[in-house]
Each structure stands twice: as structure tokens, then as C-alpha cells.
């Protein structure tokens, strides 16, 4: 058996967390080094997986399988395809950057890094799982560390951090209650008792072989949609997201906005589209409509926010709208764009939150009217902030231009009106991003910020690694798009088959 790459990516953070439990509470810098080392291993291996993934052959690669719970049909089985390879890279990348963005956590560092590493491991598990039971396990694991991290290391602004943490937790868990019910229905109906399995491939096969009636698929997909929709902050289930991000410590905001949310989009494709294709098609117009609501509604709210974190929080809700529209288009190009956009948005929002975290740490405020002219005192942080902002408004040459463009191309055929509305949303994005950049970074020098320190030491790491992907994948989009496409292209027969299936609005 070859070296278990994916298991190592998954268990390196867990091993790190286990090692930290044996360190004394006072050994802050050792704890941080152990965290950095374990995330570093994950990051390097995930780079290897991403660039070693053979997109020409496609399919599941780096496969690992162990028997786990045979009587339930669940196995410990890992693998990546074109859909999950970018996601696992994103997870490890943001986890790695997140450790360095938390380098200044000096209050109870032991608990902080244990929880953070467990959180990253949980997220990574959902993306490499080829077994639905394993997926569910990892999916729910992540919520509790986030709660504890927000209440302990978060900050109270517009709402208290306790409120924000509880709101986030309850929204996500209620969503997951419906998701669990939906997945259980799928598990129980796909195969007769005795032959039941949680294998994702087998469940996808059950759908294509016609074992699941269209009525059942519509019904079950609705549950799944509620679960993944609320995780992806789909309007109208989005309101936890800005509050949660604003209350959370920097690293949690980075991981949450950067990757955790993406489990929603990933799940809609991997479970919704592949296992319940007719249900997916039926509800697709609704998803697209909600997506447009995300884009427009959240962008308008972002325009008037005074807290930097709320701007980015609403902007991430808005960006998820594009992802939803792209997925709902049920078209190879649209889904390609959606997946690539999830990656792009992850890198960009993580960089945003890292830079905001730094500015907040230095100036002790996130209130936009109090800030200004920081480019004079913090040129390095300005570079990061500016890069993230430009990527957010889709500047060509940065990572998110190609994905967004692809989404519009893909969705125009399926939903011309929605696509036009969504494109109009870009104008709003430009407005609020430029407003924040102008108000925070530019303008006359303000003497009260003269003493603040710029990025130094560990602060460089998030900027350098995230910035490298932002620019690298911007100039060479095919690095990302080829891998993604190798995962989505094989869906063509399925997408063609459901092209004429009934939708919420009747036939096409």
C-alpha cells in the first residue's frame, strides 16, 4: 500500500492537537510551533495532492479504504477528484495561514490551538470523505470548536460575541438537522435493507439506475438544500454569517468564510446533484433565485456597514450568491465556475480577514470612519488588503476574475434574467469594496496611527501564501480550471439527462 497522503493531511492536525494537550499552558510559543508544523505538513501534502492530481485521467485518486462499520455499510474511505482537490488544498492553505494569523493569541493559547486544529481537521475530512457517514461525522464536528472559540477569543461589537456564537451554532445545527434527515432518507431508500451503504459512488449509482423516484428526490433534496443552504449562507438563512464572522477571532473567520462555508456548495454538488439529480433540477430555479437575492441583498447591506468585518461578512454572503447561481445552472461551465469561485473566494476572504485582524490588532478598531490613510503607516498590510479587495471585485489578473466570468457564461443560458441581475451585482461589489479601501487605506495621513506597527514576523505568512495563490491562479487560471474541469466534465451525461426534467417552474 502506498503512503496514505490524505489520511496524513487529515490526521496531522489531530496529532498536533493531541501533542499540544500534553504541553503546559504556559508554553505559548512551543504550542504555536507545533501547530504550525502540523499544519505545514498538511499544507505541503495538499499541495502535492493538488499538483500531483492527474487531471487528464480524472476520477478518484489517492484512494484509501479501510473497513470501518460494515454492518451499516460505512467505511473509512478517502479520495480526491477534480471537485475535492481544490477544496482540500484550500483547507490546508487557510489552516496554515490561520495559524500564523493567530500568532498573537496569548490568552489561553493551548485551548485555542487545540480547537483550531480540530476544526481544520474536521473541515478537511468533509472534503476527502468518499463515504457519506464519514462526511457527516466531520461535518458536525466543526460546529462546536467554533462556538467555544468565538465565545472565548471573539470580540463583541454590534452584537455580543455570545449572541453571535450561539446564533451561528443554532443556525448551522438546525440546518444540519434537516440535512441529516435528508441523508438518512436517501440512505434508507437507495438500497433495500441488508445492502445499504454510505458509499458516495454507490449512492450516486442508485440515483442513475432509477432506484429513487422523482417524487422522493424532490422531497429529500429539499431537506438537503435547507442544510447546505444554511451552511452556504443562502438567503434567507444567511443572517448568522456576518454576525458570526464579526464576533469570531481572525483565524476562525478565515476558516469559516474561507472553507467551511464551501462545504455547503460542495455538498450541493456532491450530494444534491449527484445523488438526487431530479430533485436538484426541480429546485434549481429556487436556488438561483435565492442566489440572486444573496448577491443583491447582501451587497446593498455591505454598502452601509461601518465595521470592516461586517463589510467582508456581507460581501461573502454576496459572493456565495454567484456560487449558487453557477451551481443551479446545472451546466458544466456554470458548475466549473462555481467550484473555482469557491476556491477563489476562500483565498480572497481569508486574506481579507487576516488583514482586518492585523489592522484591528494594531489600531484596536474596526470602525471605518475612525480609520483612514493607513497606507502611510502600514504599507505592507495595505498591499494585502488591496489585493483582497481587487480580487473581490473581480479584477482581471487576480484569482476570481475567470471563475466569475465562467459562472456568467454558464448561467446565462439557463437563467438569463438572473444572470443579468447578478452581473449588475458586480457594480455594487465594486462600490462597497472601493469605499472600504478608500476610507481605510487612503486619504490624508492621520497622526493618531503614526505609532502602529505594520506586518512583521509571522504576520507575513498569511499575506505571502494567500497572495501567491491570488496572483498565481489569476495569471495561470488553467492551473485551477483544468483540475476543476476534470471533476465536472464527467457529469455531462447526467446534466444532459436532467436537462429536460421537470423544474419548479414546470418544464424548461
Amino acid at each position, binding site marked *: 500500500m502506498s503512503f496514505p497522503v490524505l489520511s496524513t493531511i487529515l490526521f496531522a492536525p489531530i496529532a498536533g492537537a493531541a501533542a499540544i494537550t500534553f504541553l503546559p499552558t504556559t508554553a505559548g510559543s512551543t504550542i504555536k510551533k507545533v501547530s504550525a508544523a502540523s499544519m505545514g505538513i498538511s499544507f505541503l501534502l495538499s499541495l502535492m495532492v493538488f499538483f500531483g492530481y492527474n487531471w487528464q485521467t480524472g476520477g478518484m485518486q489517492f484512494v484509501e479504504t479501510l473497513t470501518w462499520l460494515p*454492518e451499516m455499510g460505512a467505511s473509512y474511505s478517502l479520495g480526491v477528484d477534480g471537485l475535492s482537490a481544490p477544496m482540500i488544498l484550500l483547507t490546508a492553505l487557510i489552516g496554515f495561514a490561520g495559524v500564523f494569523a493567530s500568532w498573537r493569541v496569548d490568552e489561553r493559547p493551548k485551548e485555542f490551538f487545540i480547537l483550531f486544529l480540530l476544526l481544520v481537521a474536521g473541515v478537511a475530512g468533509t472534503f476527502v470523505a468518499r463515504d457519506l457517514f464519514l462526511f457527516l461525522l466531520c461535518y458536525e*464536528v466543526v460546529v462546536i470548536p467554533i*462556538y467555544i472559540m468565538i465565545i472565548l477569543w471573539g470580540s463583541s461589537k454590534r452584537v455580543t460575541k455570545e449572541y453571535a456564537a450561539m446564533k451561528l451554532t*443554532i443556525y448551522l445545527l438546525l440546518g444540519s*438537522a434537516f440535512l441529516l*434527515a435528508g441523508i438518512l432518507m436517501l440512505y*434508507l431508500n437507495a438500497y433495500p435493507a441488508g445492502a445499504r451503504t454510505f458509499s458516495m459512488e454507490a449512492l450516486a449509482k442508485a440515483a442513475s439506475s432509477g432506484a429513487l423516484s422523482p417524487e422522493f428526490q424532490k422531497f429529500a433534496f429539499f431537506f438537503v438544500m435547507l442544510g447546505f443552504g444554511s451552511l452556504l449562507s443562502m438567503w434567507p438563512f444567511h443572517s448568522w454569517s456576518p454576525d458570526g464572522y464579526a464576533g469570531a477571532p481572525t483565524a476562525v473567520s478565515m476558516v469559516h468564510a474561507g472553507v467551511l462555508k464551501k462545504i455547503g456548495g460542495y455538498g450541493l454538488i456532491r450530494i444534491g446533484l449527484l445523488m438526487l439529480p431530479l430533485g436538484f433540477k426541480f429546485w434549481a430555479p429556487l436556488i438561483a433565485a435565492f442566489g440572486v437575492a444573496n448577491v443583491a441583498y447582501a451587497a446593498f447591506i455591505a454598502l452601509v456597514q461601518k465595521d470592516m468585518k461586517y463589510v467582508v461578512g456581507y460581501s461573502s454572503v454576496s459572493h456565495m450568491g454567484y456560487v449558487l447561481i453557477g451551481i443551479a445552472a446545472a451546466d458544466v461551465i456554470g458548475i466549473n465556475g462555481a467550484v473555482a469561485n469557491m476556491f477563489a473566494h476562500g483565498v480572497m476572504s481569508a486574506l481579507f480577514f487576516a488583514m482586518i485582524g492585523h489592522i484591528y490588532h494594531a489600531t484596536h478598531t474596526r470602525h471605518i470612519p475612525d480609520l483612514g490613510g493607513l497606507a502611510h503607516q502600514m504599507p505592507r498590510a495595505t498591499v494585502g488588503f488591496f489585493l483582497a479587495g481587487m480580487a473581490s471585485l473581480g479584477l482581471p489578473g487576480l484569482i476570481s476574475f475567470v471563475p466569475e466570468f465562467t459562472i456568467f457564461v454558464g448561467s446565462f443560458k439557463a437563467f438569463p434574467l438572473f444572470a443579468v441581475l447578478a452581473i449588475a451585482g458586480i457594480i455594487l461589489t465594486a462600490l462597497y469594496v472601493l469605499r472600504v479601501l478608500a476610507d481605510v487605506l487612503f486619504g490624508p495621513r492621520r497622526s493618531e496611527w503614526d505609532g502602529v506597527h505594520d506586518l512583521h514576523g509571522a504576520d507575513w505568512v498569511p499575506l505571502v501564501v494567500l497572495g501567491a495563490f491570488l496572483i498565481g491562479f489569476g495569471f495561470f487560471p488553467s492551473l485551477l480550471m483544468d483540475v476543476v474541469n476534470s471533476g465536472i466534465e464527467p457529469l455531462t451525461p447526467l446534466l444532459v439527462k436532467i436537462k429536460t426534467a421537470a423544474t419548479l417552474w414546470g418544464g424548461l
Partner: protein
Amino acid sequence: MNFDALMLEMAVALLALLILVADLLMEPGQSRRKLGYLAIAGLTGLLLVSLGRYGMQGAFFNGLFLQDDYALFFKQTFLIGAILVCLFSLDTVDNLPHSRAEFYVLLLFAVVGMMILASANDLITLYVGIELMTFSFFILVGYVLCETKSTEAAIKYLVLASAASAVMLYGMSLLFGIAGQLSYNALAKGLTASPALIVGGVMVLSGFAFKIAAPPFHMWAPDVYEGAPIPVTALLAMGSKAAGFAAMVRIFAEVFPGTGYPWPLLLLLLSGAAMLVGNLAAIPQTNLKRMLAYSSVAQAGYLLTGMLSGGFAGVKGVLFYLMIYVFANVGAFAVLTAVSRHRNGETIGDIAGLSRKAPVLAVVMTVSLLSMAGIPPLAGFVGKFFLFSSAIDAGYLWIAVLGFVLSMVSVYYYLNVVKSMYLGAPADDRPFEIAMPVRVTAVFAMAATLAMGVYPGPLSQLAETAAKTVFK
């Protein structure tokens, strides 16, 4: 006569009598800790013996008493529960003002009662088991004589449990009136659809509902849980509930199907009410014992969904869930014992700042509560998975959806405790002392909860074997 079938019950009863005699031989002022160790050692020995008894089928006294894998699984659950409770109550018992040895004796007799319930195959045996268990609990609940709350709880429990027993007995008499027989096998043949069957069946069900604390018969639980000494509360929460389910599942599996008694509908209502009442009423509680009481009402609701399917898959879920509930419960109550010894109270304010004073206990409490809420990778998730999937499989989708949603609601009040432990400031600066047995119990319970969540295979197979003996 086949005495081998009664071996475990007789051994536990003998152990109790042995402790009673040994107590007389000891100096009055001497610590009774040794007797506690004796009880633990004896029960552990019996647990090991019982492991080798799978697959043994036996009946005693014309089928009044049944020995099978199903009963054995429950007996092991009780034994494990009792061992752990004895372990973390050693120090509580040491500090009792009077009658220390009798505490273990009564605890063991309660366990004998539970074991008889698991094996009962006849209404009379059933009643004897219930009363033996309940009588022991009457005394245990009011064990601390000088404490008003404890005494009040005992009186409440005495009055309400007696009323419940009377109702159940009346129901049994009606069933006897229809069938003319008392053994389950004869009842299953002799019962015919009639209004008297409905009335009798409902009365028997209400007796069980009292034992498992399902609404509207749950009113005693919060008060009794709050007043009783913590180890007793722990045993009451898991033992009384598990024993209630042990007897209930058997009677609902073997007697009522095919008689025209609309039991699935009744169980459905009972289950929905328990989940709703338990979870919603737990939210405003500030006393952790009361909160755990309402949460145990909710657990009864989850467990009842497993009985709906009327097949072995659901019963397997019930068995699995009861076993893991023992560990979650022991973890939570062991931590509570330590907190209560330190602060002399068990409110959410008393537990504040626990993560700074005793980080291990705070983690154990968090894990135990989250397991009750059904968060993976803890055992509670797998348990709920078994229960709810059996209900969905049998066509009861909405009760499962309700269960999932309310489990997530329950996270709210469990997390409030977690918040208090991690965020709250400690109420005093005194160093926090944890007695070794409490620490051992707590950590063991947490390890079991984690292990059975990540690798539930062996326990679920055991539960499946046991469940299949009831559904032949």
C-alpha cells in the same frame, strides 16, 4: 428448577447481604470505604462472568422469568452503571452523617430489581421487579435525613410512584381479566380487541411512562433529581429509565402486537411529547440537576422512537442508546459531584470557570453533554442515528425530523453550560480538589463515549444480537 437463570440476581442480592453483615462487624466510627470497594469488586466480577453468558437461553418457574441475550444486555448495562456510580459515590458516602454501608446495600437491591425487570416474562414478575427497584429508590432519594430537599423529594417520589404503581396494577388486572392469564406468552394469545384492552393497555403504558419519565408522567423527575443525592440521581436517571425500557420493550414486542391495541399511535404521541416537553423545559433551567432531569425526559422521547418500528432495528437502537446514555450520564454526574462538593451547589453559576480550575472535568462535562445532544464523533450521534433511521424506515419520517431538530435545540442549553464553564469567572479562589475515584470515573466515561462514537461496531453488534432474541 433452573437456578442458573437466576444466577446474576442471586449473586447481587448475596453481595448486598454480605455488605450488610460486614457492616455489623465493623466499628461504628470506622470508614465504610472498604465496603464500597467490596461492592465495586463484586459487581465487576459479575460483569466479567456475565460476558460469557451470551447465547444461554433459560426459563425459570414455568416461564415467569426468562434468561436470554436481551435480558443479559440490560443486566450488563445496569451492572456497568452501578459500578460507575459506586465508584464516584465513594467520597459522597464517606461524608454521609449516618448509615453509610446501607447506601451500597440499597443501591445493590435497586440493581436486583432492575435485573428482574429485564428478565420478567410475566406480569407478576414485572410488578415484583418494579417494586423492588422503586422501594430501594424511595429510601435512597431521601437518604440525607437532615436535608429538607432530599426528604421532600423522597415524599414526592413515594406518593407519585405509588400512584403510578396502583394505576399500572389496575391495568394489569384488566389484562388478566380479558386473558385469564398472566404470562406474556399466554397474554399474547388470550388478549382480544375490546375497550377493556385499550383501558388496561393505556394504564400499563402510563406506569411505564412514569418510570421512563415521559410526559405527562414526568413531573416527578425535576424535583426528585434535584433533591436526591447526586449518585442516586445518576442511577435513577439511567437505571430506572433503562429498566423501564427493558420491561416495556419486551411487553410491547411480545404481548401487544396482533391484539388490536393501538400502541404505535400511543408511543408516537408519547415520544413527540417527551422530546418537546423535555427539550423546551430544559432551556430556562439554571440548576444543572433539573436541566439534566428535563434532558432525560427528552432522551426518553428519542428512545421511544426506536420502539415505533416494532422491529429489531429499532430495539437495537434502544439498547445501544441506553448503554451509551449510561456513560454520558455518569460523566456528567461525576463532574457534578466534584463541583457540588466544592461549592455545595449545582447551579450553572457553581460550575462557572471550571475550565480554569479543573480543565479535565470541564472537558468531560462538555463531551458528556454533547453526546446527549448527539454531536459526532461522540456515541450519542450513532445512537440517535440508529433510533431515527429505524423510525424513518418504518415510515415515521416526521417524528425523526422532530427528533433531529429538537436535538439541535438541545445543543442550546447544553452549550450554555459549556459557556459557563469556559467563559464564566470562578465564583471563588479556593483550590479545586478532585477525589481520585471521581476523576477516574469521569475520564473513563469520557473515553467510553468517544470510543463508542468513533468505533460503534462491537457494541452495535452486541445490541443487535440481543435485540434479535426478542424479535425471533
